[in-house]
C-alpha cells in the first residue's frame, strides 16, 4: 500500500488538489471572452471552470506511473485502489469547492466541483478509449471544443455544454456523475478488459500474428 501510494504520487495529487481549490478561490473569477459562433458577444469562460483540468491531468499521469507487467501479477487490488483514489480525489475537491461556494468564498466553486468529477470521469473513459498517455488529454480537448463550439447566438452555453452551464442545471451534474461512473467502471474492470483484449488478439487470424 505504501509502495502503491508512492508510485502513484498520492502526496503530489493531494497537493495539486489543494492548488486547484486555492486557484478557484483566488483566481476563479478571471473570465475569458471566447469568440462564439454567430454571436456578437463572446462566451464568458471563468478560469474556475477549467481549473479542475489540472487535477485530471495529475491523476491521469499518476495512473501511468506503475509498471503494468509487475502490477499484472500483484496480489493487491491495484485497479480498485487506482479507481478509488482518483474518484475520491475528485469527490474531495468537489466537496471542498461546494462548501467554499456555499460559504461565499468561491464564486464558481460549485461549477468547478462538478467539473472536477466530470473531468476525472472523462479521463478514465479516455484512458480506456485511446490509451493512458493520450487519455489524459481527453478532458482538456473536450473543454476546448465545448468552449469554442458550445455557445449559442447570445453567447450563452448550450444545454449540452455541461461543463460550462450554471451549477443549478441538474442535468450537468447527472452528466458528470454518469461520466465518473462509466469511467470508474472501465478503470475497475481494466485487468479483465485487458485479458479479454489479449484473448481476442490471440484469436485473430492468422494465429500468433
Amino acid at each position, binding site marked *: 500500500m505504501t509502495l502503491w501510494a508512492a508510485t502513484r504520487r498520492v502526496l503530489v495529487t493531494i497537493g495539486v488538489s489543494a492548488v486547484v481549490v486555492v486557484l478557484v478561490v483566488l483566481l476563479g473569477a*478571471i473570465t*475569458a471572452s471566447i469568440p462564439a459562433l454567430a454571436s456578437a458577444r463572446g462566451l464568458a469562460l471563468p478560469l474556475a471552470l477549467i481549473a479542475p483540468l489540472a487535477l485530471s491531468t495529475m491523476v*491521469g499521469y499518476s495512473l501511468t506511473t506503475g509498471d503494468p507487467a509487475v502490477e499484472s501479477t500483484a496480489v493487491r487490488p491495484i485497479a480498485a485502489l487506482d479507481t478509488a483514489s482518483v474518484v475520491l480525489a475528485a469527490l474531495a475537491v468537489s466537496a471542498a469547492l461546494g462548501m467554499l461556494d456555499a460559504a461565499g468564498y468561491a464564486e464558481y466553486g460549485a461549477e468547478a466541483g462538478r467539473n472536477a468529477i466530470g473531468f476525472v470521469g472523462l479521463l478514465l473513459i479516455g484512458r480506456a478509449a485511446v490509451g493512458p498517455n493520450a487519455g489524459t488529454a481527453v478532458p482538456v*480537448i473536450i473543454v*476546448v*471544443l465545448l468552449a469554442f463550439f458550445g455557445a449559442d447566438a447570445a453567447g450563452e452555453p448550450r444545454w449540452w455544454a455541461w461543463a460550462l452551464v450554471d451549477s443549478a442545471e441538474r442535468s450537468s451534474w447527472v452528466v458528470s456523475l454518469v461520466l465518473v461512473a462509466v469511467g470508474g467502471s472501465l478503470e475497475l474492470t481494466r485487468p479483465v478488459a485487458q485479458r479479454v483484449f489479449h484473448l481476442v488478439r490471440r484469436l485473430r487470424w492468422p494465429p500468433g500474428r
Partner: protein
Amino acid sequence: MRIRTILRTNAGVWLTLPLTLLAVAYIANFTRSADPYPVAVTAAGLAALGFVVPICAALGAWEGGRLRRGGTWDLPTVRSRYVIAGWALGPVVAAGCVSVVAAVLTSTLASGVAVPDWRPVLVAFLVVLAHSAAGFALGILVPTALAVSGSLLASFVWMVFLRGLDPMWLRYLNGGAIELCCDISTDLAPSAVSGPLVVAIGLLAAAGLTLATTRAGLQRRALALAPLLVALVIGSMLVSELSAYPAVPRDERQLLCSDRDQIRVCVWPEHEPRLAEVAGLAAKAWAGWRAAGVSAPTHFTEGQDGVPPDVLRFSFAMRSSPSVIVSGFAYAMLPPWPACADFGPYLGFEAFEYVHAWYAAHGGLPEDDLRSMYQASSGPDRPPVIELVDQVLAQPLDVQRRWLAANVAALESCEMEPQLSLSAPNS
C-alpha cells in the same frame, strides 16, 4: 526519415483534416464583415487560433513524447537534434498552418477578398510554430501523459485568458487578439504585430535551448527560459501603448474622392462602388441643410483628417441603405460629445434624438424611414421625437433655426436645459 513513414505515423498528418474542418466550421459561422477590407477579414479568421494553437502544442508534445518513450532522443545521433525535431514537428506545424490558412480564406472569400493581408497570417504561423516547438520540448522533458495534457492546457490558457486580464495590453502578447482588428477607418497597429512576433520568437528560442540542454543540469535547463522572459519584457514594452483594439488610423492617402456640385466626398477604396451614390446623397443633404439656412461643410469624408465643422466625418458599410447613410450624415452634423459629460450630469443629452431627426429630415431622409426610426422613441418627461419634430418642421425656417440653435447649444454644454418644445426650455 522517409516521407511515407512520416505520413503514416505522424499525429499531425492524421489530424490535419479534422483540425482544418473544425477551423473552417468555426469561422464559417461568424457574422460576416460588411466591408471587403482585407486586414479586417483576415484578422477575423484568426479567431480560430484559440483552439488550433493549443491542439498543435499538444500534437508537438505527443511527437516529443514518442521520441522520449522510444528512447530515441537519448541515443547518439548522426543528424542534428534540431533536424530530428524538425522532421517530427513539420507535419504538426503544417497542420496548424493549413488550418489557419483555411480559416482565413473562409473569412476573406466570404467577404469577397481574394488575397488576405499577410501580417495577421505571419503572426499566426509563428505562434503555431512556437507553441508546437514548446509542446515538443515539454514532450521530451516530462512523461507523455503530463506533456500532452499540460501543453494543451497551458497553451489554451495563454491563448484565451490573457483577454480577461488587466492591463488590457496583455491580450496582445499571444497574437490571438489581432482578430479584434479593425474597422474600415483603421489599420493594424504595427506593435500588435511586432509584440506577439517577439514573444513567439522568444518561446521558439526557449524551446530550442531546452532541446539543447536536455542532458544538462537543472540550472542550465532553467537558463533556457531566459529568451522567453526577455521576449516577454520586450513584447510588453511594444504593446503597452495599445488600448482595447489593435488599431491605428488608416493612411488618409488611400481615400478616393469625388467632386460634384461643389461637394467633395471621400470614401475608403472598399467603398468605391458606392462612391457616386454616396456623393449624390451628400449633395442632396448639403442642399437641404443650406435651404434650411444651416451652414454645413462641403467636405464629406470617411477619414479622420480635418477638423469639424470644416469637414463632415461619416462612415457606412457596403450594405448600408441610403437612409442609413443619410442618417449618418445627420449624426455627423451633431456637436461633439462634451468633455464635461464624462464627469457629471449632461442635461442637453435629451436633445440628441430631436436634433438628429431634424437634420435627417432636412438632409433628405424619407419621411417613412424617419418615422420608423423614431417610432418608439419617447420618455416619461419628454415628448415623442416624431411629434415634436413634426411640429418644428411645420414652423417657418427662422423659428426652426432658433429651436435648433437652442438645442445645439444645450448639446455643447452640460448645464443648459434642452428646448423640447416650441415655446420655452423644458424645466
